[in-house]
Structures are given as C-alpha cells and as structure tokens.
C-alpha cells in the first residue's frame, strides 16, 4: 500500500543529506519531498515527507537509522473520515493552529494537515468519531 509519512532526520555530518535522499529514491523507490532543512553547529535537521510502499518505507527508515542518523516520525497527525464528518464545525474554534477551518461560502469544514501540530485538542470536540490521531 502506497503511503505518505512525515519524518524529522537529524544529521551530524551535513554532507550525508544528499546521499541519503539519493539512496531513498534509487534503492527504496521512495519519493522524498523536503519540507524544511535547517543547519547549525551540531549538524542539520531535515523535515521531509516520504511517499512509497509501506514495506519500502520501513526498510528505508531502518537503513537511514543504520547510518547513524536519528529519525523521528512526525507520525501523529490528524485524519478525518469524510464519511463520518457532518461538517458541524465543532472542531474549528478549539484548534489552536487553525488547521480546521470553515469555508463560509459552502460551509464545508476543511482540514489542512500542514498546519496541524498534533496537539489532540480537536479529538474530544468531534461528536461523530470522524477525527483520529493516526500513527
């Protein structure tokens, strides 16, 4: 099953960055999408989204870890089940990062994953069990 996951990679040596992303593509058939790259004295931090088969993703992450790179999955993010959602808007005002918004023309409730900081506040606001914090 093809899927997309968000990760934070922490490097000690900066030059590893390009070789790592190259290996992800060539060896594990993964599409990396770099969302954020930061460097400082202690090394670099890369926030990236990886897309690929679940099995390949897991192998790739094992491989990256074996190179001494610390990997953290920014795994917890909110998903919304559209079949359960009734667009009631209960989740909107409780979301501190405004990831949930209402379109005031169509009155549909939208979720912008990029803004979600996985705080979990919306979970207890949704009356239809439409929201879950997935791993």
């Amino acid at each position, binding site marked *: 099953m093809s899927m997309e996951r968000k990760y934070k990679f922490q490097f000690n040596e900066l030059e590893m960055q390009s070789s790592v992303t190259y290996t992800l593509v060539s060896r594990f058939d993964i599409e990396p999408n770099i969302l954020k790259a930061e460097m400082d004295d202690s090394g670099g931090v890369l926030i990236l989204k990886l897309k690929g088969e679940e099995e390949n993703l897991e192998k790739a992450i094992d491989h990256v870890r074996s190179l001494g790179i610390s990997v953290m999955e920014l795994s917890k993010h909110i998903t919304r089940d559209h079949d359960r959602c*009734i*667009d*009631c*808007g*209960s*989740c*909107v*005002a*409780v979301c501190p990062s405004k990831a949930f918004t*209402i379109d*005031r023309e*169509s*009155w*549909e409730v939208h979720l912008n994953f990029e803004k979600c900081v996985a705080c979990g*506040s919306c979970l*207890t*606001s949704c*009356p*239809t*069990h439409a929201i879950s914090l997935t791993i």
Partner: protein
Amino acid sequence: MAKTVSEINERIRSGKAVVYTAEEMVDIVRDKGAEKAAEEVDVVTTGTFGAMCSSGAFLNFGHSDPPLRMTNIRVNGVEAYGGLAAVDTYIGATQVSESDRTYGGGFVIEDLIAGKRVSLEAWGPGTDCYVRKNIKTSFTLDEINEAYLFNPRNSYQNYGVATNNSDRTLHTYMGKLLPRMKNANYSSAGELSPLLNDPHLETIGVGTRIFLGGGEGFVSWQGTQFNTTVPERNGVPVGGSRTLALIGDMKQMSHRFVRGLDIYGYGISLAIGIGIPIPVLNADIARHTAVSDADIYANLTDYSVTSRSRPTLAQYTYEQLKSGTIEYDGHSIRTSPLSSYRNARIVANTLKDWIEHGEFLLTEPVKKLPEESSVKTLEIRE
C-alpha cells in the same frame, strides 16, 4: 393578495409552484418587497441539522415462537424501554451502551437506518400467555414491523451561545469549551432554521408535513419546554423558545440525515436533519421568512456557572456568530457552529426539490400550537 394552502398545492401538483429556501428569500424580499414576494413565491423551505437529544424510536419486533413478553431489552447492548406491550419498545437517543460509553441509542438509530444488522437480547418474566423467558437474536430495520422516530423536543426556535470563563476546559452538550473564554459555541442554523422563519407559528401546527431525517414526517404536538415568553428582537425570540414534537417513519429515512453523536464528557445524542415548508400565504408571512442572520440575536452565557439560570454576558447576531469571531470585553472569541449549516442547506434544498417536482404537498395545521406557554421549574422538596 392572500393565497390558500390548497391553491398552493394545486400549483405544486401542476409543477408550477415557486419555491425558495429561507436563505434565498432574504434577498428576494429585500429586492421586491414583501407584497410582491408574497404574490410571486408559493413556498419557502427551511432546514436545520444538529443535535436533538430529546429523540428516540418506537420499534415493534414481531413475536418469536413461542412468544416472549419483553420487560428487559438490549439493542446492540443499549437498553430500550421494557414497560410497553410484549414486543413494543422505545429506544432513547441518549441511552448509553452498558459496555461502550462512546455508543448508545443515537448510534443504534443511525445503524438501523443505515440498514445494518443489530443484536437483540431480551428477557421477560415468563407468563401463561408468554412462556419464553429470554431471547438472543438480531434484526435489521426491514425485518421488524413498525419503526418510527418520535421525538418529544426537536427544532428549537433559537438557542443560546456557550462560553467558559473558568480556568479549566468544560465538556458540555454545547461542545468543548476552552478556559478563559477562548471559544464560544452556538447551535442554531439562524436564518435557515425552521421556527425562526415562522416565529409565531402561523403556518406550523399539529399535522404539518415536514422533512424528517430524509423522509416524510409530521409535527405531532408542541415540543416539551415549549415557551412563548422569551423576549424578542426584530420579531424573533432571543434564545430557546418554541419547540416541536415530531414523528416520522424510519424506513423512509437516510442515515445521511440521521447521525449518532458522542459528545465527549456529556454523552450520546442524535443529529437529525429537519426541514419545514412554509406556505407564503400573505405579505406578513413573506416578511417573516425573509428574516436574516443580521436580524436574529442570541445570548452569550458562561457555562462555568452551574446554576439553572446563567446570566447573559452579551447578545450577538448570527451574522456575527457565523463570521468566526465575536468581540467581548476587548478581546476576540473564536466561534464554532455545532450544527451543520452545510447539511441544513442540503435539507432545505432537498425539500425545495421535492416540492418543485410535485412530490411533497403542504398541509394546514389540524390544531394550532399554544399561543401562550411558559416553562415550569422543578422544586426540590423534602
């Protein structure tokens, strides 16, 4: 020029009726005036889709062989009333499952309407005429005799706005309320809401045919806590006032418009789509159906006050509430609707469609709802 309901029905039958939603009617009356609008428009449709806690379903299971007089009943683990005749029951929307606090009557009703199979366990005393003492089986909505929603209080005419001025998060039937007034929740559909478009119930009464949960339903009585004494602004009550008791065949309904709710920290409820058609008999009725969000006010109250009557902090129009933020005491509070305006619109438009296609005729009330009624309180006596 006044019209009658039977004249309007003639036009519906011949496919010529002019129908607008209550939202569309705002502009029509603003542009053309109430007199002209009343001549041109036959019916205005309204809609709401939100939590209606005082709801439930009557079910008749049919008899097993040998038969059982059910006095203790569980449907999908949720208790249903055992004090009616042998195989009749009533399952209330807020009844919580004994094994799963996130499931209850509202979800059983949704599951049945969605066509799902549910389990039935029942026990009885065993009598000479009903020798069986228990049963364990399952059923679907199609397999049982009657199944109808009968809701003692639905479609509140306006309601309050909830906030929380305490230091801790509150989980209420008005949703999640963050501390220090960070958010405020409102629940009425405002200008599209049925009873706000006929504020003194000139056209809606016992017997009025309505849209209920995707099928045809009827107003059966005034709802409980029916109240005509709430102060008005612009001719509509500010706060919860009139209510309706509704009835409708579950077998006609769609689970798209009937949904179980699990309101965290409060309990189980049921969201129902309700639409009421208003015959535009004269200019006064046209004017009422043109009420807009800017004309309708609701009271903001602090739900951290635990007594029965909470003081009003401020009044806001639905235009302000629907904008997403309101101002209070120099700071802004983010608002959430709780009821689905998107689905309220779908209800009003579906009903409009039925009427335009000649599939839904209007009714005259068999009996008017009370013109004067106030709400009594319960005194604590030792």
